[in-house]
């Protein structure tokens, strides 16, 4: 039953739309020299399309990661290592082979893999276009945006009857 409730929460719009600008799709490499095709394909293996969720590429993950790499040299090194290990032909592999290559990377160079995985997660889940599909709302600003529910004291019935639990000490 709870599963159904959960799904209902998440199923809203079922159409997959391109989220945000998927820029520079034709470019081979971004400013940090990362291979765009490999990055895009790896991103879509890490977050593939789901029933109601778009894949990483539709959230602009590759471009995000390239911009991130351009600002963060240490991360750029990890991404480069990850993509090099996946191989130049990665984007042309059939999907099971791509997944296997990523699993091998995860096993053999976890820091590089984790950096790539976390960056894909970051690109995807900090994209506000994804949030409505999670049921997440973002309210901001100096003014109150909603009423706060009142505190319900009923659950205190038992605990407020407990005997004193602290020690006196003067």
């Amino acid at each position, binding site marked *: 039953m709870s599963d159904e409730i*959960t799904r209902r929460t998440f199923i809203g719009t079922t159409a997959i739309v391109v989220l945000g600008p998927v820029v520079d799709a034709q470019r081979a490499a971004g400013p940090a020299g990362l291979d765009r095709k490999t990055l895009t394909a790896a991103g879509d293996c890490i977050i593939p399309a*789901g029933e109601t969720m778009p894949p990483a590429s539709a959230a602009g993950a590759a471009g995000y990661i390239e911009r991130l790499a351009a600002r963060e040299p240490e991360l750029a090194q990890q991404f480069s290592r990850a993509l090099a290990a996946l191989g130049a032909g990665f984007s042309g592999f059939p999907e099971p082979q791509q997944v296997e290559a990523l699993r091998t990377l995860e096993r053999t160079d976890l820091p590089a893999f984790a950096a790539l995985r976390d960056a894909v997660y970051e690109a995807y889940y900090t994209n506000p276009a994804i949030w409505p599909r999670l049921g*997440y709302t973002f309210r901001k600003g100096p003014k109150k945006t909603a009423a706060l529910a009142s505190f*319900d004291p009923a659950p*205190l019935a038992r605990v407020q009857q407990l*005997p004193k639990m602290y020690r006196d000490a003067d």
Partner: protein
Amino acid sequence: MRAERADVVVIGAGAAGAALTWRLASRGIAVVCLEQGDWLRPSQFASEQTNYEVQLRRGNLGLFPAVRRRPEDYPIVTAGAGPTDMVMWNGVGGSTVHWEGHFPRLHPSDFRVHRLDGVADDWPIAYADLEPFYDLNDRNVGVSGVTGDPANPRRSPRATPPLPLGPSGAAVVRGFEKLGWHWWPSDNAILSRDHDGRPGCDNRGRCNFGCALRAKASADVTYWPKALRGGAKLLTRARVKEITVAPDGRVRGVSYFDARGTIHEQLAKVVVVCCNGIGTPRMLLASKSRLYPDGLANGAGMVGRHFMNHPSRYVEGIFDEPFEAATYGSNPLFSQHFYETDSARGFVRGYSLVVYRPGGPASVAWGDSEPVPWGKGHHEEMRRRFAHSVGIAVMAEDLPEDVNRVELDDKVTDSNGVPAPRVTYRASDNTKALLQHGANAARQVLEAAGARTVFDNGRVMNFAHYMGTARMGTDPRRSVVNDWHQSHEVQNLFVVDGSSFTTSAAVNPTSTIGALALRAADGIWSRRQEWG
């Protein structure tokens, strides 16, 4: 360049410095507070940006000075077994800008750990000495909560009712109820209704990324506006180089760098150090002179020793039922079922269990406990976890140990050349035993509450509570300041903040820091004939 001599100079504009400055200024005292950081306007808070979670890893608005590297931050060298990821905000309001507003008090027994449990040292003051200042601080800050908690002495009426438990809090309550254990709605320095010119919380979450609504009581929105209206002077981007001394051994004032790196001296009758449990010993140790070659107030070698934090374990439950997606809120409830010593448990002292609401989208994916798996099952697992998880943090009492300490690093400095602090720490066997007991208890609660999965990765984490390094005491050989926060060695030097704590207790320290600061202010004021 010298400014006019002030009555009192306060170093640091955080929870302690703000409260103390307000109290003294409201009595007509000429107070100058020097703060190495600056104001952060609410519109600048990370919480106002959609990529706020990125600040957990990089960016210049986050929790970790080592990540931010703002010019006003200072490096912190760590050694020993950790913690390595020190958290603080260097700016007006100090770390209250980033805190979550938990506002518990110490228990009466926390002030008497030696007498009651035969460990550490007793505080030179008792709960009753501090109680009126707890009340005053609560009124100034604006605390939501409800009185009647059987685990604590009865408190004065709270400013507003508690924050709602929310669906995640209500689920955890089920577990406590089933086990018959103590729990209580948390006191939070977050208004649940409009109060004292500030709006009540609207449950947008992200409290620890800064509250643009001002429902959360950071010192920049509570004490500082009142202190400045009361005539206090606050100098920002004023980084103290050292506390200066006069030939008679008394403190003369402070020398400080402005934002351009020019050195100034601010003379004062009294100097109060409020730089937190790491910054305060650093400041005292850096203030070396012919009269005080080992640093100020350090004749007994006690400055920097007995560093304590609150080691923690985080246990997370994944539930089938949907919870609120307003993430990173305050903690709705806590338990002190295992707070007081019970020798049958195999350790002394105890811990609080603190309930945490669900995390934000990226953090859930990264995993507070374990990352969400990638690949085909990713969305399914993300759906199971996002807005379906609730965490219980174990907050352990950390007993003071001589070997856990803050010193000056002999190589690393801040951007002005002031030596960086080096923190050496390891958790004791008692602390580890206590944490394991707490993690087991947290698991029991979550399972009793009906969690489908419980994550406990066994990692020892740490709350950003730094204490004990300039501690209060009656014996000048074993402490740095007396019961009024006055240095045993230097009559017109006072220290009040987390470093003043004789023991750490097992609760968030900020309400106690505020109460101590208000009490210290009254002590300084009542000794004004001695200022010279």
